[in-house]
Protein backbone atom coordinates (compact mmCIF):
# COMPACT_ATOMS: atom_id res chain seq x y z
CA UNK A 1 0.00 0.00 0.00
CA UNK A 2 2.83 2.35 0.88
CA UNK A 3 4.37 2.31 -2.57
CA UNK A 4 1.07 2.73 -4.36
CA UNK A 5 1.58 6.38 -5.18
CA UNK A 6 5.22 6.20 -6.11
CA UNK A 7 4.92 4.04 -9.19
CA UNK A 8 3.23 4.75 -12.48
CA UNK A 9 3.11 7.94 -14.44
CA UNK A 10 2.12 11.14 -12.68
CA UNK A 11 -1.36 12.30 -13.57
CA UNK A 12 -2.20 15.77 -14.77
CA UNK A 13 -4.23 18.00 -12.52
CA UNK A 14 -7.46 17.72 -14.57
CA UNK A 15 -7.37 13.92 -14.58
CA UNK A 16 -6.55 13.94 -10.89
CA UNK A 17 -9.57 16.11 -10.19
CA UNK A 18 -11.89 14.00 -12.36
CA UNK A 19 -10.67 10.77 -10.79
CA UNK A 20 -10.85 12.16 -7.27
CA UNK A 21 -14.45 13.25 -7.83
CA UNK A 22 -15.26 9.83 -9.28
CA UNK A 23 -13.65 8.17 -6.28
CA UNK A 24 -15.65 10.27 -3.85
CA UNK A 25 -18.90 9.51 -5.68
CA UNK A 26 -18.15 5.77 -5.82
CA UNK A 27 -17.08 5.60 -2.18
CA UNK A 28 -20.21 7.46 -1.19
CA UNK A 29 -22.32 4.94 -3.10
CA UNK A 30 -20.45 2.03 -1.47
CA UNK A 31 -20.93 3.49 2.01
CA UNK A 32 -24.61 4.12 1.38
CA UNK A 33 -25.11 0.59 0.06
CA UNK A 34 -23.25 -1.10 2.90
CA UNK A 35 -24.90 1.03 5.57
CA UNK A 36 -28.31 0.10 4.16
CA UNK A 37 -27.44 -3.59 4.05
CA UNK A 38 -26.14 -3.41 7.61
CA UNK A 39 -29.33 -1.77 8.84
CA UNK A 40 -31.37 -4.34 6.95
CA UNK A 41 -29.87 -7.18 9.02
CA UNK A 42 -29.74 -5.47 12.43
CA UNK A 43 -32.46 -6.14 14.98
CA UNK A 44 -35.11 -3.41 15.22
CA UNK A 45 -33.75 -0.10 16.40
CA UNK A 46 -34.78 3.58 16.21
CA UNK A 47 -32.57 4.36 13.20
CA UNK A 48 -33.98 1.43 11.34
CA UNK A 49 -37.57 2.33 12.06
CA UNK A 50 -37.11 5.99 11.14
CA UNK A 51 -35.48 5.20 7.78
CA UNK A 52 -37.41 2.00 7.12
CA UNK A 53 -38.78 3.20 3.79
CA UNK A 54 -35.29 4.19 2.56
CA UNK A 55 -33.76 0.90 3.67
CA UNK A 56 -36.50 -1.27 2.26
CA UNK A 57 -36.62 0.76 -0.93
CA UNK A 58 -32.95 0.06 -1.52
CA UNK A 59 -32.67 -3.51 -0.27
CA UNK A 60 -35.83 -4.88 -1.90
CA UNK A 61 -36.38 -6.48 -4.28
CA UNK A 62 -32.87 -7.17 -5.57
CA UNK A 63 -30.66 -7.18 -2.44
CA UNK A 64 -32.66 -9.17 0.11
CA UNK A 65 -30.61 -10.02 3.19
CA UNK A 66 -32.13 -13.20 4.56
CA UNK A 67 -29.03 -14.55 6.22
CA UNK A 68 -30.58 -15.80 9.46
CA UNK A 69 -29.97 -19.34 8.25
CA UNK A 70 -30.89 -21.80 10.97
CA UNK A 71 -30.90 -18.83 13.39
CA UNK A 72 -31.70 -17.76 16.02
CA UNK A 73 -33.24 -21.19 16.45
CA UNK A 74 -32.59 -24.00 13.99
CA UNK A 75 -35.71 -25.45 12.40
CA UNK A 76 -36.93 -28.01 14.89
CA UNK A 77 -40.13 -29.30 13.36
CA UNK A 78 -40.84 -31.65 10.54
CA UNK A 79 -43.85 -30.22 8.77
CA UNK A 80 -45.91 -32.70 6.81
CA UNK A 81 -48.40 -31.45 4.26
CA UNK A 82 -51.14 -33.79 3.11
CA UNK A 83 -53.82 -33.15 0.53
CA UNK A 84 -57.04 -34.77 -0.58
CA UNK A 85 -59.47 -33.92 -3.32
CA UNK A 86 -63.17 -34.14 -3.93
CA UNK A 87 -64.08 -35.37 -7.34
CA UNK A 88 -67.37 -35.08 -9.17
CA UNK A 89 -67.96 -37.75 -11.74
CA UNK A 90 -70.64 -37.14 -14.40
CA UNK A 91 -73.24 -39.17 -12.47
CA UNK A 92 -73.42 -36.41 -9.86
CA UNK A 93 -72.33 -37.97 -6.54
CA UNK A 94 -69.14 -36.37 -5.33
CA UNK A 95 -66.44 -38.53 -3.87
CA UNK A 96 -63.77 -37.57 -1.36
CA UNK A 97 -60.40 -39.17 -1.94
CA UNK A 98 -57.76 -40.43 0.47
CA UNK A 99 -55.20 -38.13 2.05
CA UNK A 100 -52.03 -38.07 -0.03
CA UNK A 101 -48.81 -37.26 1.81
CA UNK A 102 -47.12 -34.69 -0.41
CA UNK A 103 -44.17 -34.20 1.92
CA UNK A 104 -43.37 -37.91 2.02
CA UNK A 105 -43.06 -37.79 -1.74
CA UNK A 106 -40.56 -34.91 -1.51
CA UNK A 107 -38.59 -36.62 1.24
CA UNK A 108 -38.37 -39.83 -0.79
CA UNK A 109 -37.01 -37.87 -3.75
CA UNK A 110 -34.38 -36.18 -1.56
CA UNK A 111 -33.26 -39.36 0.16
CA UNK A 112 -29.97 -40.72 -1.15
CA UNK A 113 -29.71 -37.95 -3.69
CA UNK A 114 -26.46 -35.98 -3.47
CA UNK A 115 -27.97 -32.99 -5.30
CA UNK A 116 -31.65 -32.61 -4.35
CA UNK A 117 -33.81 -30.50 -6.65
CA UNK A 118 -35.44 -27.26 -5.53
CA UNK A 119 -38.67 -28.80 -6.81
CA UNK A 120 -38.50 -31.32 -3.95
CA UNK A 121 -36.53 -29.55 -1.26
CA UNK A 122 -37.95 -26.03 -1.43
CA UNK A 123 -41.17 -25.72 -3.38
CA UNK A 124 -43.78 -27.19 -1.03
CA UNK A 125 -41.81 -26.50 2.15
CA UNK A 126 -41.40 -22.79 1.43
CA UNK A 127 -44.88 -22.45 -0.09
CA UNK A 128 -46.34 -23.58 3.22
CA UNK A 129 -44.09 -21.13 5.07
CA UNK A 130 -45.25 -18.28 2.86
CA UNK A 131 -48.88 -19.32 3.32
CA UNK A 132 -48.54 -19.49 7.07
CA UNK A 133 -46.88 -16.09 7.30
CA UNK A 134 -49.48 -14.43 5.09
CA UNK A 135 -52.60 -15.85 6.79
CA UNK A 136 -54.23 -15.57 10.18
CA UNK A 137 -54.72 -18.69 12.26
CA UNK A 138 -58.23 -18.88 10.87
CA UNK A 139 -56.96 -18.88 7.28
CA UNK A 140 -57.89 -15.30 6.49
CA UNK A 141 -55.41 -13.89 3.96
CA UNK A 142 -53.45 -10.83 5.10
CA UNK A 143 -53.19 -8.56 2.08
CA UNK A 144 -52.77 -9.34 -1.61
CA UNK A 145 -49.81 -11.59 -1.00
CA UNK A 146 -51.93 -13.85 1.16
CA UNK A 147 -54.33 -14.36 -1.73
CA UNK A 148 -51.47 -15.04 -4.16
CA UNK A 149 -49.75 -17.50 -1.82
CA UNK A 150 -52.99 -19.40 -1.14
CA UNK A 151 -53.48 -19.78 -4.87
CA UNK A 152 -49.89 -21.04 -5.14
CA UNK A 153 -50.31 -23.66 -2.40
CA UNK A 154 -53.58 -24.81 -3.93
CA UNK A 155 -51.98 -25.22 -7.33
CA UNK A 156 -49.04 -27.17 -5.89
CA UNK A 157 -51.47 -29.56 -4.22
CA UNK A 158 -53.55 -29.83 -7.39
CA UNK A 159 -50.54 -30.52 -9.54
CA UNK A 160 -49.29 -33.25 -7.27
CA UNK A 161 -52.59 -34.96 -6.44
CA UNK A 162 -54.14 -34.69 -9.86
CA UNK A 163 -51.03 -36.04 -11.48
CA UNK A 164 -51.70 -39.36 -9.75
CA UNK A 165 -55.40 -39.58 -10.54
CA UNK A 166 -56.81 -40.52 -13.86
CA UNK A 167 -59.78 -38.90 -15.53
CA UNK A 168 -62.03 -37.80 -12.68
CA UNK A 169 -62.68 -34.08 -12.43
CA UNK A 170 -61.48 -32.49 -9.20
CA UNK A 171 -63.89 -29.91 -7.79
CA UNK A 172 -62.26 -29.17 -4.44
CA UNK A 173 -59.00 -29.68 -2.59
CA UNK A 174 -58.16 -29.68 1.10
CA UNK A 175 -54.89 -29.56 3.00
CA UNK A 176 -53.94 -30.98 6.37
CA UNK A 177 -50.69 -29.98 7.99
CA UNK A 178 -48.90 -31.78 10.80
CA UNK A 179 -45.94 -30.24 12.60
CA UNK A 180 -43.92 -32.86 14.43
CA UNK A 181 -41.26 -31.42 16.72
CA UNK A 182 -37.84 -33.02 16.48
CA UNK A 183 -37.21 -34.81 19.75
CA UNK A 184 -34.49 -33.05 21.78
CA UNK A 185 -31.31 -35.04 22.32
CA UNK A 186 -31.30 -37.38 25.33
CA UNK A 187 -28.53 -35.41 26.98
CA UNK A 188 -30.37 -32.09 26.72
CA UNK A 189 -32.31 -30.34 29.51
CA UNK A 190 -35.10 -29.90 27.05
CA UNK A 191 -35.85 -33.59 26.93
CA UNK A 192 -38.63 -33.16 29.50
CA UNK A 193 -40.21 -30.10 27.90
CA UNK A 194 -40.71 -31.57 24.44
CA UNK A 195 -43.67 -30.07 22.61
CA UNK A 196 -46.43 -32.16 21.20
CA UNK A 197 -47.39 -32.62 17.58
CA UNK A 198 -49.67 -29.94 16.16
CA UNK A 199 -52.33 -30.50 13.53
CA UNK A 200 -54.02 -27.99 11.31
CA UNK A 201 -56.73 -28.76 8.78
CA UNK A 202 -57.52 -26.12 6.20
CA UNK A 203 -60.97 -25.49 4.75
CA UNK A 204 -61.97 -27.03 1.44
CA UNK A 205 -60.92 -24.90 -1.48
CA UNK A 206 -63.09 -25.11 -4.57
CA UNK A 207 -61.25 -25.80 -7.81
CA UNK A 208 -62.19 -24.20 -11.10
CA UNK A 209 -60.78 -24.91 -14.51
CA UNK A 210 -58.73 -21.73 -14.45
CA UNK A 211 -56.93 -22.96 -11.31
CA UNK A 212 -55.42 -25.69 -13.47
CA UNK A 213 -53.91 -23.36 -16.05
CA UNK A 214 -50.62 -24.74 -17.19
CA UNK A 215 -50.38 -27.53 -14.63
Amino acid sequence: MADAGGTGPGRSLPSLVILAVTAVVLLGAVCWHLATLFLAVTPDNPVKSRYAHLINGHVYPEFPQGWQLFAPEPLHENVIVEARVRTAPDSGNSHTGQWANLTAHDVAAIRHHPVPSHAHQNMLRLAWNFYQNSHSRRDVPLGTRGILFAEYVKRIALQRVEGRRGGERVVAVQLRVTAKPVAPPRWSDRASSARSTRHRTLPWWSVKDEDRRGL
Partner: protein
Amino acid sequence: MSIDHLTHPTVRPAAAPPASAVHGRWREAAARLVAFACEMHARYQCALFRIGLSGLVLAYLLREWPHRRVLYGDRSPWALDLAARLVAENHAFTVLTWSAGRWWFECVYHGAILVAALLMLGWRTRATSVLFMLAVLSLQNRNPLIGDGGDNVIGVMAIYLAFTRCGAVWSLDARRNRRDRRAGRVDRAGFVMWQILGVALLWVSDGFQGTAWAAVLWAFWACQGLWYAARRWSRGAWSRELLDAAATMLHNCAMLVIAAQVCLIYATAGWYKIQGTRWQDGSGLHYALHLDYFSPWPGLGSLLASHMLLIVLLGYGTVVVQVAFPFLLGYRRLKTALLGLMILEHAGIAVLLGLPFLSAAMVVCDAVFLPTALLKPSRRSSGSRPKR
Protein backbone atom coordinates in the same frame (compact mmCIF):
# COMPACT_ATOMS: atom_id res chain seq x y z
CA MET B 1 6.93 12.57 -9.53
CA SER B 2 8.00 16.15 -9.74
CA ILE B 3 6.35 17.08 -6.50
CA ASP B 4 8.37 14.73 -4.35
CA HIS B 5 10.40 17.53 -2.80
CA LEU B 6 7.27 18.88 -1.16
CA THR B 7 6.68 15.84 1.00
CA HIS B 8 7.26 17.56 4.33
CA PRO B 9 6.76 21.24 3.71
CA THR B 10 5.83 22.11 7.28
CA VAL B 11 9.21 21.19 8.81
CA ARG B 12 11.09 23.39 6.35
CA PRO B 13 12.16 26.90 7.11
CA ALA B 14 10.04 29.72 5.81
CA ALA B 15 11.77 29.56 2.42
CA ALA B 16 8.94 27.65 0.77
CA PRO B 17 5.82 29.73 0.24
CA PRO B 18 3.22 28.19 2.61
CA ALA B 19 0.25 28.41 0.25
CA SER B 20 1.82 26.43 -2.58
CA ALA B 21 3.44 24.04 -0.10
CA VAL B 22 0.10 23.15 1.37
CA HIS B 23 -1.28 22.95 -2.12
CA GLY B 24 1.51 20.61 -3.17
CA ARG B 25 1.09 18.41 -0.15
CA TRP B 26 -2.59 18.07 -0.76
CA ARG B 27 -2.00 17.31 -4.38
CA GLU B 28 0.52 14.63 -3.57
CA ALA B 29 -1.75 13.02 -1.02
CA ALA B 30 -4.60 13.08 -3.53
CA ALA B 31 -2.33 11.65 -6.23
CA ARG B 32 -1.32 8.82 -3.92
CA LEU B 33 -4.89 8.04 -2.97
CA VAL B 34 -6.08 8.20 -6.56
CA ALA B 35 -3.20 6.00 -7.67
CA PHE B 36 -4.13 3.46 -5.01
CA ALA B 37 -7.79 3.59 -5.98
CA CYS B 38 -7.00 3.19 -9.69
CA GLU B 39 -4.68 0.25 -9.20
CA MET B 40 -6.52 -2.98 -9.91
CA HIS B 41 -6.96 -5.01 -6.73
CA ALA B 42 -7.92 -8.65 -6.32
CA ARG B 43 -7.85 -9.53 -10.01
CA TYR B 44 -7.21 -13.23 -9.40
CA GLN B 45 -9.76 -13.42 -6.62
CA CYS B 46 -12.26 -11.77 -8.92
CA ALA B 47 -11.54 -14.17 -11.78
CA LEU B 48 -11.91 -17.11 -9.40
CA PHE B 49 -15.17 -15.63 -8.15
CA ARG B 50 -16.43 -15.24 -11.72
CA ILE B 51 -15.54 -18.83 -12.62
CA GLY B 52 -17.03 -20.16 -9.39
CA LEU B 53 -20.26 -18.22 -9.52
CA SER B 54 -21.01 -18.83 -13.19
CA GLY B 55 -19.95 -22.47 -12.92
CA LEU B 56 -22.28 -22.87 -9.97
CA VAL B 57 -25.21 -21.33 -11.82
CA LEU B 58 -24.41 -23.48 -14.85
CA ALA B 59 -24.42 -26.63 -12.70
CA TYR B 60 -27.66 -25.54 -11.04
CA LEU B 61 -29.43 -24.86 -14.34
CA LEU B 62 -28.31 -28.20 -15.76
CA ARG B 63 -29.36 -30.03 -12.59
CA GLU B 64 -32.79 -28.42 -12.63
CA TRP B 65 -33.22 -28.88 -16.37
CA PRO B 66 -35.76 -31.70 -15.94
CA HIS B 67 -37.72 -29.54 -13.45
CA ARG B 68 -37.25 -26.21 -15.22
CA ARG B 69 -40.86 -25.87 -16.39
CA VAL B 70 -42.30 -26.63 -12.95
CA LEU B 71 -39.88 -24.31 -11.20
CA TYR B 72 -39.75 -21.30 -13.52
CA GLY B 73 -41.76 -22.07 -16.61
CA ASP B 74 -45.21 -22.67 -18.02
CA ARG B 75 -46.01 -25.63 -15.74
CA SER B 76 -45.16 -23.80 -12.53
CA PRO B 77 -47.77 -23.66 -9.77
CA TRP B 78 -46.54 -20.07 -9.41
CA ALA B 79 -48.37 -19.21 -12.63
CA LEU B 80 -47.15 -16.38 -14.80
CA ASP B 81 -50.07 -14.14 -13.84
CA LEU B 82 -49.35 -14.69 -10.12
CA ALA B 83 -45.70 -13.83 -10.76
CA ALA B 84 -46.72 -10.77 -12.76
CA ARG B 85 -48.92 -9.53 -9.92
CA LEU B 86 -46.13 -9.91 -7.39
CA VAL B 87 -43.64 -8.23 -9.73
CA ALA B 88 -46.07 -5.34 -10.29
CA GLU B 89 -46.11 -4.90 -6.54
CA ASN B 90 -42.43 -5.28 -5.64
CA HIS B 91 -40.87 -4.12 -8.95
CA ALA B 92 -38.46 -7.04 -9.13
CA PHE B 93 -36.58 -7.49 -12.39
CA THR B 94 -37.55 -10.34 -14.67
CA VAL B 95 -37.80 -10.64 -18.42
CA LEU B 96 -39.91 -13.78 -18.16
CA THR B 97 -43.15 -11.83 -17.69
CA TRP B 98 -42.68 -10.24 -21.11
CA SER B 99 -44.28 -13.15 -22.90
CA ALA B 100 -46.35 -16.12 -21.79
CA GLY B 101 -45.13 -18.27 -24.66
CA ARG B 102 -43.23 -21.39 -23.82
CA TRP B 103 -40.67 -20.52 -26.53
CA TRP B 104 -39.74 -17.37 -24.61
CA PHE B 105 -39.17 -19.29 -21.38
CA GLU B 106 -37.06 -21.91 -23.14
CA CYS B 107 -35.04 -19.16 -24.84
CA VAL B 108 -34.33 -17.46 -21.53
CA TYR B 109 -33.51 -20.69 -19.67
CA HIS B 110 -31.20 -22.02 -22.36
CA GLY B 111 -29.80 -18.54 -22.91
CA ALA B 112 -28.96 -18.48 -19.20
CA ILE B 113 -27.11 -21.79 -19.56
CA LEU B 114 -25.18 -20.42 -22.53
CA VAL B 115 -24.33 -17.13 -20.85
CA ALA B 116 -23.19 -18.89 -17.66
CA ALA B 117 -20.91 -21.15 -19.70
CA LEU B 118 -19.47 -18.22 -21.67
CA LEU B 119 -18.88 -16.18 -18.53
CA MET B 120 -17.14 -19.11 -16.93
CA LEU B 121 -14.79 -19.30 -19.88
CA GLY B 122 -14.36 -15.54 -19.78
CA TRP B 123 -15.69 -14.79 -23.26
CA ARG B 124 -16.54 -11.09 -23.71
CA THR B 125 -17.00 -10.69 -19.97
CA ARG B 126 -18.08 -7.03 -20.14
CA ALA B 127 -21.24 -8.13 -21.96
CA THR B 128 -21.67 -11.63 -20.56
CA SER B 129 -21.38 -10.55 -16.94
CA VAL B 130 -24.29 -8.14 -17.43
CA LEU B 131 -26.32 -10.73 -19.35
CA PHE B 132 -25.54 -13.24 -16.60
CA MET B 133 -26.92 -10.87 -14.00
CA LEU B 134 -30.08 -10.34 -16.07
CA ALA B 135 -30.54 -14.08 -16.61
CA VAL B 136 -30.07 -14.97 -12.94
CA LEU B 137 -32.44 -12.23 -11.74
CA SER B 138 -35.01 -13.10 -14.39
CA LEU B 139 -35.21 -16.72 -13.32
CA GLN B 140 -35.09 -16.02 -9.59
CA ASN B 141 -37.73 -13.31 -9.72
CA ARG B 142 -39.99 -15.41 -11.94
CA ASN B 143 -40.39 -17.66 -8.92
CA PRO B 144 -38.87 -16.12 -5.78
CA LEU B 145 -40.81 -18.60 -3.63
CA ILE B 146 -38.47 -21.53 -4.25
CA GLY B 147 -35.23 -19.74 -3.45
CA ASP B 148 -33.24 -20.60 -0.34
CA GLY B 149 -30.19 -18.86 1.14
CA GLY B 150 -28.01 -20.14 -1.68
CA ASP B 151 -30.18 -18.51 -4.33
CA ASN B 152 -30.14 -15.31 -2.33
CA VAL B 153 -26.32 -15.28 -2.30
CA ILE B 154 -26.12 -16.07 -6.00
CA GLY B 155 -28.60 -13.34 -6.98
CA VAL B 156 -26.90 -10.61 -4.95
CA MET B 157 -23.40 -11.62 -6.03
CA ALA B 158 -24.41 -11.79 -9.71
CA ILE B 159 -25.32 -8.11 -9.49
CA TYR B 160 -22.01 -7.17 -7.88
CA LEU B 161 -20.05 -9.24 -10.40
CA ALA B 162 -21.40 -7.15 -13.29
CA PHE B 163 -19.54 -4.14 -11.88
CA THR B 164 -16.15 -5.86 -11.71
CA ARG B 165 -13.51 -6.35 -14.39
CA CYS B 166 -13.80 -10.07 -13.97
CA GLY B 167 -12.13 -11.01 -17.25
CA ALA B 168 -8.71 -9.51 -16.57
CA VAL B 169 -7.06 -12.89 -16.02
CA TRP B 170 -7.90 -16.57 -16.54
CA SER B 171 -10.28 -15.79 -19.37
CA LEU B 172 -10.63 -15.97 -23.13
CA ASP B 173 -10.72 -12.16 -23.03
CA ALA B 174 -7.26 -12.02 -21.49
CA ARG B 175 -5.91 -14.45 -24.06
CA ARG B 176 -7.43 -12.51 -26.95
CA ASN B 177 -6.09 -9.22 -25.63
CA ARG B 178 -2.61 -10.70 -25.34
CA ARG B 179 -2.71 -12.02 -28.89
CA ASP B 180 -4.15 -8.82 -30.31
CA ARG B 181 -1.49 -6.78 -28.60
CA ARG B 182 1.26 -9.04 -29.86
CA ALA B 183 -0.06 -8.96 -33.43
CA GLY B 184 -0.93 -5.27 -33.28
CA ARG B 185 -4.55 -6.04 -34.16
CA VAL B 186 -7.59 -4.06 -33.11
CA ASP B 187 -10.56 -6.12 -32.02
CA ARG B 188 -13.65 -5.29 -34.09
CA ALA B 189 -16.02 -8.08 -33.04
CA GLY B 190 -16.53 -6.47 -29.64
CA PHE B 191 -17.66 -3.24 -31.28
CA VAL B 192 -20.15 -5.11 -33.46
CA MET B 193 -21.45 -6.97 -30.40
CA TRP B 194 -21.84 -3.64 -28.60
CA GLN B 195 -23.94 -2.32 -31.50
CA ILE B 196 -26.14 -5.40 -31.57
CA LEU B 197 -26.71 -5.20 -27.81
CA GLY B 198 -27.59 -1.53 -28.19
CA VAL B 199 -30.27 -2.34 -30.76
CA ALA B 200 -31.57 -5.16 -28.56
CA LEU B 201 -31.71 -2.85 -25.57
CA LEU B 202 -33.57 -0.21 -27.59
CA TRP B 203 -36.05 -2.91 -28.57
CA VAL B 204 -36.86 -3.91 -25.00
CA SER B 205 -36.37 -0.55 -23.31
CA ASP B 206 -40.01 -0.12 -22.32
CA GLY B 207 -40.07 -3.50 -20.59
CA PHE B 208 -38.54 -2.21 -17.34
CA GLN B 209 -41.38 -0.02 -16.19
CA GLY B 210 -41.36 1.07 -12.59
CA THR B 211 -37.67 0.28 -12.13
CA ALA B 212 -34.31 1.89 -12.73
CA TRP B 213 -33.10 -1.05 -14.78
CA ALA B 214 -33.37 0.66 -18.16
CA ALA B 215 -31.16 3.47 -16.86
CA VAL B 216 -28.65 1.01 -15.39
CA LEU B 217 -28.38 -0.99 -18.61
CA TRP B 218 -28.12 2.12 -20.78
CA ALA B 219 -25.40 3.40 -18.46
CA PHE B 220 -23.43 0.17 -18.92
CA TRP B 221 -23.88 0.43 -22.66
CA ALA B 222 -22.97 4.11 -22.84
CA CYS B 223 -19.80 3.62 -20.78
CA GLN B 224 -18.67 0.85 -23.08
CA GLY B 225 -19.45 3.12 -26.06
CA LEU B 226 -17.41 5.89 -24.49
CA TRP B 227 -14.54 3.47 -24.13
CA TYR B 228 -14.71 2.53 -27.83
CA ALA B 229 -14.92 6.19 -28.76
CA ALA B 230 -11.88 7.01 -26.66
CA ARG B 231 -9.93 4.25 -28.30
CA ARG B 232 -11.01 5.26 -31.79
CA TRP B 233 -10.74 9.04 -31.78
CA SER B 234 -8.70 10.18 -28.87
CA ARG B 235 -5.40 11.87 -29.67
CA GLY B 236 -3.03 10.57 -27.05
CA ALA B 237 -4.11 8.15 -24.41
CA TRP B 238 -5.53 10.66 -21.95
CA SER B 239 -9.24 9.87 -22.13
CA ARG B 240 -8.57 6.17 -22.54
CA GLU B 241 -6.41 6.14 -19.43
CA LEU B 242 -9.03 8.11 -17.55
CA LEU B 243 -11.82 5.69 -18.45
CA ASP B 244 -9.66 2.70 -17.62
CA ALA B 245 -8.83 4.19 -14.24
CA ALA B 246 -12.48 4.94 -13.49
CA ALA B 247 -13.52 1.41 -14.51
CA THR B 248 -10.82 -0.04 -12.27
CA MET B 249 -12.04 2.11 -9.43
CA LEU B 250 -15.53 0.76 -9.95
CA HIS B 251 -14.09 -2.76 -9.97
CA ASN B 252 -12.31 -2.12 -6.68
CA CYS B 253 -15.49 -0.78 -5.13
CA ALA B 254 -17.45 -3.82 -6.32
CA MET B 255 -14.83 -6.16 -4.83
CA LEU B 256 -15.00 -4.23 -1.57
CA VAL B 257 -18.78 -4.60 -1.55
CA ILE B 258 -18.52 -8.33 -2.29
CA ALA B 259 -16.07 -8.78 0.59
CA ALA B 260 -18.26 -6.74 2.93
CA GLN B 261 -21.34 -8.67 1.85
CA VAL B 262 -19.65 -11.99 2.66
CA CYS B 263 -18.69 -10.67 6.09
CA LEU B 264 -22.26 -9.50 6.61
CA ILE B 265 -23.60 -12.95 5.72
CA TYR B 266 -21.36 -14.72 8.22
CA ALA B 267 -21.80 -12.10 10.91
CA THR B 268 -25.58 -12.19 10.62
CA ALA B 269 -25.72 -15.98 10.63
CA GLY B 270 -23.39 -16.10 13.65
CA TRP B 271 -24.71 -13.27 15.80
CA TYR B 272 -28.31 -14.40 15.44
CA LYS B 273 -27.38 -17.97 16.34
CA ILE B 274 -25.88 -16.72 19.60
CA GLN B 275 -29.34 -15.51 20.57
CA GLY B 276 -30.95 -18.91 20.06
CA THR B 277 -31.31 -21.11 23.11
CA ARG B 278 -30.73 -24.28 21.09
CA TRP B 279 -27.37 -23.01 19.87
CA GLN B 280 -26.55 -21.87 23.40
CA ASP B 281 -27.05 -25.30 24.91
CA GLY B 282 -25.12 -26.90 22.06
CA SER B 283 -27.98 -28.90 20.60
CA GLY B 284 -28.56 -26.76 17.51
CA LEU B 285 -26.90 -29.17 15.13
CA HIS B 286 -28.94 -32.05 16.51
CA TYR B 287 -32.14 -30.46 15.21
CA ALA B 288 -30.66 -29.55 11.85
CA LEU B 289 -29.60 -33.16 11.36
CA HIS B 290 -33.07 -34.51 12.05
CA LEU B 291 -35.06 -32.56 9.49
CA ASP B 292 -36.58 -34.74 6.79
CA TYR B 293 -36.08 -32.10 4.12
CA PHE B 294 -32.39 -31.81 4.93
CA SER B 295 -31.30 -35.39 5.41
CA PRO B 296 -30.39 -37.14 2.20
CA TRP B 297 -28.33 -39.64 4.21
CA PRO B 298 -30.33 -40.20 7.41
CA GLY B 299 -28.00 -42.94 8.65
CA LEU B 300 -25.00 -40.65 8.45
CA GLY B 301 -26.89 -37.83 10.18
CA SER B 302 -28.06 -40.03 13.03
CA LEU B 303 -24.59 -41.47 13.47
CA LEU B 304 -23.16 -37.98 13.86
CA ALA B 305 -26.07 -36.80 16.02
CA SER B 306 -25.59 -39.67 18.46
CA HIS B 307 -22.22 -38.27 19.59
CA MET B 308 -22.91 -35.61 22.18
CA LEU B 309 -19.37 -34.27 22.31
CA LEU B 310 -19.16 -33.97 18.54
CA ILE B 311 -22.52 -32.20 18.20
CA VAL B 312 -21.73 -29.65 20.89
CA LEU B 313 -18.21 -28.96 19.63
CA LEU B 314 -19.29 -28.65 16.00
CA GLY B 315 -22.24 -26.45 16.98
CA TYR B 316 -20.12 -24.11 19.07
CA GLY B 317 -17.35 -24.19 16.47
CA THR B 318 -19.75 -23.12 13.73
CA VAL B 319 -21.04 -20.18 15.73
CA VAL B 320 -17.57 -19.08 16.85
CA VAL B 321 -16.14 -19.23 13.33
CA GLN B 322 -19.08 -17.36 11.82
CA VAL B 323 -18.93 -14.61 14.40
CA ALA B 324 -15.14 -14.35 14.23
CA PHE B 325 -14.92 -14.44 10.44
CA PRO B 326 -14.83 -10.69 9.72
CA PHE B 327 -12.32 -10.08 12.50
CA LEU B 328 -9.90 -12.85 11.57
CA LEU B 329 -9.47 -11.66 7.99
CA GLY B 330 -6.85 -9.18 9.13
CA TYR B 331 -4.43 -11.95 10.14
CA ARG B 332 -2.97 -13.32 6.97
CA ARG B 333 -1.68 -16.70 8.23
CA LEU B 334 -4.75 -17.34 10.32
CA LYS B 335 -6.98 -16.29 7.44
CA THR B 336 -5.87 -19.05 5.08
CA ALA B 337 -6.35 -21.69 7.78
CA LEU B 338 -9.74 -20.23 8.61
CA LEU B 339 -10.80 -20.33 4.96
CA GLY B 340 -9.69 -23.94 4.72
CA LEU B 341 -11.79 -24.72 7.78
CA MET B 342 -14.80 -22.90 6.33
CA ILE B 343 -14.51 -24.78 3.04
CA LEU B 344 -14.37 -28.09 4.92
CA GLU B 345 -17.41 -27.13 6.93
CA HIS B 346 -19.33 -26.20 3.80
CA ALA B 347 -18.40 -29.51 2.21
CA GLY B 348 -19.84 -31.22 5.29
CA ILE B 349 -23.05 -29.18 5.07
CA ALA B 350 -23.34 -29.95 1.35
CA VAL B 351 -23.37 -33.69 2.04
CA LEU B 352 -25.07 -33.95 5.43
CA LEU B 353 -27.85 -31.41 4.92
CA GLY B 354 -28.21 -31.94 1.19
CA LEU B 355 -27.50 -28.30 0.40
CA PRO B 356 -24.78 -28.51 -2.26
CA PHE B 357 -25.62 -25.24 -4.02
CA LEU B 358 -25.84 -23.17 -0.85
CA SER B 359 -22.54 -24.65 0.33
CA ALA B 360 -20.84 -24.17 -3.02
CA ALA B 361 -22.04 -20.55 -3.14
CA MET B 362 -20.44 -19.91 0.23
CA VAL B 363 -17.21 -21.64 -0.82
CA VAL B 364 -17.08 -19.35 -3.88
CA CYS B 365 -17.58 -16.37 -1.56
CA ASP B 366 -14.83 -17.61 0.77
CA ALA B 367 -12.49 -17.85 -2.20
CA VAL B 368 -12.62 -14.07 -2.59
CA PHE B 369 -10.40 -13.83 0.48
CA LEU B 370 -7.72 -16.28 -0.61
CA PRO B 371 -4.29 -14.65 -0.75
CA THR B 372 -2.95 -13.79 -4.19
CA ALA B 373 0.26 -15.66 -3.45
CA LEU B 374 -1.74 -18.86 -3.19
CA LEU B 375 -3.63 -18.22 -6.41
CA LYS B 376 -0.67 -17.09 -8.49
CA PRO B 377 2.64 -17.99 -6.86
CA SER B 378 4.85 -16.81 -9.73
CA ARG B 379 3.39 -13.29 -9.65
CA ARG B 380 3.90 -12.69 -5.96
CA SER B 381 5.31 -9.23 -6.45
CA SER B 382 2.95 -8.05 -9.18
CA GLY B 383 0.47 -5.24 -8.76
CA SER B 384 -2.44 -7.28 -7.49
CA ARG B 385 -2.77 -7.59 -3.76
CA PRO B 386 -4.90 -9.99 -1.78
CA LYS B 387 -8.21 -8.67 -0.65
CA ARG B 388 -7.55 -7.65 2.92
